[in-house]
């Protein structure tokens, strides 16, 4: 459905994309996860034809973007980071206008608007001007306005930034529905929870390039990161540390009062570890299991946190 090959982009003094490639199948929910400034918005801008890449190629729904921008535009819906609506017009008027740009026949469009307003839970407020809406409601209309022409592909650039939980959940529900209905979606975010929750496949982007991609399970196994058990002791001295080091097998290290033990099968290893500690007279005050998630994957790949 979408094939992005080695696109690069530089602004006046910054290199925003150093070479981004990915491929997305029809109906796939693809997450682009990366910290602020990674190049997510730049990528989406290029895919949605409003920014020309310096090099590389993009194919959407079989059309080469540089050669057939109009055709590509018909297949895509874009939800930007910022809310782009006419505040002085009502929600209904906004939807009517945005929908009309895609040559949806009038009658069909009006029906779709009704349905969409229903879907986003804003049918009763449709006559009110956008300026009277809350941030979350505006965001919902903003998303709705990108769906009226029934795009095959939907690009969403951080649609949940600065939004109330209620609206966020509603957006998630809609997204899940669209996904089940078979829409191809690219979703950018810097929240790993969102990427983990929805995405069939995830591309991790940093400093203008995709550093890893695959399903959640695939990503978790990249970089050889294992889950770990962190055990905090009350009486850890050099003597005890030495005894433990002799007794334990595998991959572990000590720092201050904490022992971190890496393992591929954490459940079986956990009871063994506790047994060993008891035998050696080490008093445990806390045990914490550190699972592998996108955060730790990102940490392992880049040496920094996803969120600054």
């Amino acid at each position, binding site marked *: 459905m979408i094939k992005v090959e080695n696109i690069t982009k530089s602004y006046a003094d910054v290199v925003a994309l150093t070479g981004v490639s990915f491929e997305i199948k029809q109906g796939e929910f693809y997450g682009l996860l990366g910290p602020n400034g990674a190049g997510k918005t*730049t990528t989406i*801008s290029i895919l*949605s*034809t*409003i*920014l020309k890449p310096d090099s590389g190629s993009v194919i959407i729904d079989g059309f080469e973007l540089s050669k057939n921008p*109009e055709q590509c*535009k*018909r297949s*895509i*819906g*874009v939800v*930007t980071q*910022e*809310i*782009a*609506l*006419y505040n*002085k*017009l009502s929600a209904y*008027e906004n939807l009517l*206008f*945005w929908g*009309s*740009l*895609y*040559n949806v026949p009038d009658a069909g469009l009006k029906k779709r608007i009704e349905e969409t307003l229903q879907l986003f839970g804003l049918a009763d407020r449709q006559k009110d*001007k956008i300026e009277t809406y809350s941030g979350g409601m505006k965001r919902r209309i903003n998303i709705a*306005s*990108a769906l009226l022409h029934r795009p095959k592909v939907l690009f969403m650039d951080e649609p949940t930034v600065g939004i109330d939980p209620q609206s966020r959940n509603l957006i998630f529900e809609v997204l899940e529905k669209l996904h089940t209905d078979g829409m191809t979606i690219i979703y950018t975010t810097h929240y790993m929870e969102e990427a983990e929750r929805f995405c069939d496949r995830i591309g991790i982007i940093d400093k203008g390039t995709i550093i890893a991609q695959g399903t959640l399970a695939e990503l978790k196994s990249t970089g050889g990161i294992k889950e770990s058990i962190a055990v905090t002791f009350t009486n850890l001295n050099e003597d005890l540390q030495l005894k433990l080091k002799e007794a334990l097998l595998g991959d572990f290290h000590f720092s201050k009062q904490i022992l971190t033990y890496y393992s591929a099968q954490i459940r079986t290893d956990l009871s063994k570890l506790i047994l060993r500690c008891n035998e050696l007279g080490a008093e445990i005050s806390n045990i914490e299991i550190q699972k592998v998630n996108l955060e730790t994957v990102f940490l392992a790949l880049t040496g920094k946190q996803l969120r600054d």
Partner: protein
Amino acid sequence: MFKIALKDLKLFRADKRAMLLTFLLPIPLITLFSLAFGGMGSSSGSKAMILIAADEDKTPTSKRILQQLDSLKEIDIKLTGLDTAKNWVRKGDEDAVLILHKGLKDSLDAGKEMPIELVYDKAKQVQMGLYMSVLSGNLMRIVGTKSMEKKAMNRFDSQNPGMDSAMKAGVHQMIASNFDGGSGADGKTANSDGGAILKATAMEAQKENAPGLVQAVAGTAVMMLLFSVAGLGASLLQEKEEGTLKKLLFAPLSPQSILFGKMISANLISIVQMVVMFSFSWLVFGLNIKQNIPALILMILATAFACSGFGVFLASFAKSRAQVQGLTTLIVLTMSAIGGSMIPAFVMPLWMQKMAVVSVNYWSIQGFYDIFWRVLPVTDPVFLSRVGVLFLIGLVLNLLAIRMYKKNILNIA
């Protein structure tokens, strides 16, 4: 493109401030300016009313009548030729003129209807009534008795055809002395007969428009137009700043059509605004807008085109909305000042009048003067040249706007 224009019009309608600026603010301004320039070129204001009169009879009797009218404290008679007098009414320079036709003395002597005529501007009913009331009473006093005396004698003569001339002369003497004494007592009859003495004829004035009013209306119209289209142009930058322009670019339409949509709506709003302003001036100040409709339409279109070109041009080369607003105020006020929107161009020093040609205001205001004051026909080359200049200005500004738009506005992100 039309969808975009329609949306812009909807947005404009929803924007109360813009509506106010476009349609309401010009009204007090026109009123203010027309009060300020109102006296220009028209002859009202002095206590005694100046009455233009044409003496076609040129007899001692007609001279005496005019002298006696002139001696009245409420009337100042100014003599001129018949054609000139009528022309002044036709052009709207005078509300009414008094004409003493040939044969006045003879009809007076013969006791027939008096060929005295008040030719007045059809649109000036009120002024005509004023003239009539002053004139008919006085004319009655001056010539009325004389004429009735003759009438009585004539009646006597016709009823007694067989009477010899010596007898007749005696009776005439009696009638004359009778009338001399009784002029005051006969005031009532005389007045009711006044209409017969003074015939009032309406004349359709072709140019009742005082230059002061034309100045006020045209000057304000163009200036306000520039402000409101600049506002619409600024909405292009607002769209850029609020992200809706970017969103428009996601849609399968050519980027230029967004600009063209703005141009269309700017033109439409300009046209409506001018129609409103001229209608207002017509209804309230009696600006005669009906005398040359084709020329007026042409001028409105040309002005709308030039002004809206200015609006989109300004928006396309400014960097931000704040910048547009600052520039708008500066440029519009400067252009309006040198172009004659605030002070008529002809009272400005010559060097300023020469500079005026760089402003949209100048060409447009002069064009409206052509229509309303100089009363040039729509085919007049001078008038058409102004229309041409305005269209040219509009064309150049629009083309520049398209170029700048690609360079400035479309580089999003």
